[in-house]
């Protein structure tokens, strides 16, 4: 691409470069009462950014509706039918769990084979429409960036990275990320690098693009030896034409900021440099934090913030800045997640957050939730109890990163290196 073209594009996208895709309805449901996944975090994040004065009116966009046929690009048609039928049947029976006979042909065994009706993925009324709405919001973010209307866009309601082709898994019914990436590849001809910083392995996205040389999936996560979904070993590297396009860096439980960031720095920059993506999609699951009750990593907000800044810098270096950010896990939902995602937005926008959380935000949500909320964005990390095996954890993480690079770097040399089709055609 000629230097002049690049200059013209930068000029175009700096106008309204940032978009926060927001639909309050996507914060207004629960999978089940007492379910650890709290969609309300999305509204707390939005409200925190607004109250902090770092999110402008013109930066908030509503998602465009998505035809359910878009789901079929990554999901099995019978699975989508089963989700729809279960979702509709749950409406009929209102609050009560739907009885088998209401599902008609949907036997409990069939539902279970699709991962539906467990404590992780309970069937709830309107499930299909709601999660289709989450996919719509992620696709909107992808469209905005892929079409050049924005440089960076977020959907913190999204990030459902565990959903599989024909199975709900790990709180995820439809894989909004995969739907979005599929569209970026198919419609816009982009090469997409997916960076998954959730504490859990990004298995659904990985398996859906496992043999695709146009999509590189990079996941940093707590080792599957200890944590759901159990996968994400270094030797999962992709298959067929996509060999080398899956990158997995499993980390020890209780990994802290320094070792986390050293592991990130050893692997992610080289992977992106080698892959040369047109677009980076970041899954910013906030369950890597020390206070997360479902996982065992031990990051601080400062460490998480640094990792987001790194991804923004890498997007500037390797994908001309194009970056889409989704949410993901995060089960300390009111105290940790809104701050983490506000820090992600701060990294994207380059706008500094105030030292203190806005008092009107604290008061409003403390009253509504009945929990005490923190007063500052920064944490007093001196109050974190020391991790006893820090040195051993650091050593182990370092050796895993080395082993990974030894296996996978040679494979990157053989991955098709040509840039995306749209680029060649001069469409972007």
């Amino acid at each position: 691409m000629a230097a002049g073209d690049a200059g013209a594009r930068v000029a175009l996208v700096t106008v309204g470069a940032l978009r926060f895709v927001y639909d309050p309805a996507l914060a207004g449901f629960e999978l089940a009462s007492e379910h650890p996944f709290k969609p309300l975090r999305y509204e707390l994040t939005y409200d925190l950014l607004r109250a902090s004065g770092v999110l402008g009116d013109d930066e908030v966009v509503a998602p465009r509706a998505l035809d359910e046929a878009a789901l079929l690009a990554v999901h099995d048609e019978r699975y989508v039918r089963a989700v729809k039928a279960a979702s509709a049947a749950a409406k009929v029976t209102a609050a009560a769990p739907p009885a088998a006979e209401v599902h008609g042909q949907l036997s409990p065994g069939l539902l279970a084979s699709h991962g539906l009706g467990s404590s992780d993925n309970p069937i709830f009324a309107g499930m299909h429409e709601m999660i289709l709405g989450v996919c719509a919001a992620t696709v909107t973010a992808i469209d905005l960036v892929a079409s050049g209307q924005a440089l960076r866009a977020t959907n913190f309601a999204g990030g459902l990275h565990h959903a599989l082709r024909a199975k709900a898994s790990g709180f995820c019914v439809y894989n909004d990320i995969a739907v979005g990436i599929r569209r970026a590849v198919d419609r816009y001809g982009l090469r997409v690098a997916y960076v998954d910083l959730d504490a859990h392995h990004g298995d659904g996205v990985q398996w859906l693009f496992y043999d695709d040389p146009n999509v590189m999936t990079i996941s940093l996560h707590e080792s599957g030896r200890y944590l759901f979904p159990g996968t994400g070993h270094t030797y999962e590297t992709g298959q067929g034409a996509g060999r080398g396009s899956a990158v997995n860096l499993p980390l020890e439980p209780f990994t802290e900021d320094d070792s986390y960031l050293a592991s990130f720095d050893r692997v992610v920059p080289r992977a992106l440099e080698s892959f040369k993506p047109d677009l980076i999609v970041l899954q910013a699951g906030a369950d890597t934090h020390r206070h997360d009750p479902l996982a065992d990593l031990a990051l601080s907000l400062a460490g998480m913030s640094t990792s987001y800044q790194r991804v923004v810098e890498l997007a500037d270096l390797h994908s001309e800045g194009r970056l889409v950010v989704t949410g993901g896990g995060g089960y300390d939902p009111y105290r940790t997640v809104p701050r983490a995602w506000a820090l992600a937005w701060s990294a994207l926008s380059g706008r500094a957050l105030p030292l203190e959380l806005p008092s009107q935000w604290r008061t409003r949500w403390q009253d509504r939730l009945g929990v005490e909320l923190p007063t500052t964005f920064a944490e007093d990390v001196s109050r974190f109890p020391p991790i006893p095996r820090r040195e051993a954890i650091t050593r182990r993480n370092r050796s895993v990163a080395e082993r990974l690079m030894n296996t996978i770097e040679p494979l990157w040399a053989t991955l098709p290196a040509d840039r995306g089709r749209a680029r060649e055609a001069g469409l972007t």
Partner: protein
Amino acid sequence: MLVADVMTHKVVAIGPDTPLRDVQVLMEQRNIRHFPILMARASDQVDDELVGIVSDRDVRLVGADHPRAPAGLKASDPVSRLMVSPVIVAHPEDPVEEAAKVLRERKIGAMPVMDDGKLVGIVTGIDMLDALVRMSGVYEAAARLEVEVANRPGALAELLALIARRNVNVSSVMTTRGDPDTMSFVLRVATADSHGLAAHLRDHAVSVLWPPATPEPASRS
């Protein structure tokens, strides 16, 4: 899981007169390591008789300048001069763990599977490993849970009932034996909230070795 579930159904068998050099070629071409050897019978009404088996290790050394090469055998000799017989065989309805035990105890790599005098398949050590991997449930998205319960009837049932109460599916259960008073189980459970499940089990006095207990959210700052 039975031998019939894991065996290779399409067996490549050879006749006893096949020259060893042809066996070598066939092994390379078909990427096969064990050949059952069948002898045709006079009558078409009766199945061929299994008379021996050869492995790639035996065949490869024929004619080689190697201390363990079979003495006095040439590549033109018939396989009947090298084959092992009688053959240790499995039945399609043998449980895989039985077949695995025989393979290990007899230190062999494969067994022809015979049903009523007819060769119906072959089962190898790799098939056993595949079966074990499948049984362990590692292909399902799940979390690993390690618990220790008393070594008495009903202890596992009580554990599983507690897990069922959380509406969590169990992908697999493996036993590791501890001291005489306890049994340890490694379970793969289809939930992303294995900490929540562990807390629930601990509330019911189950000794959970993994995942570790996490502090209550209220105690955090």
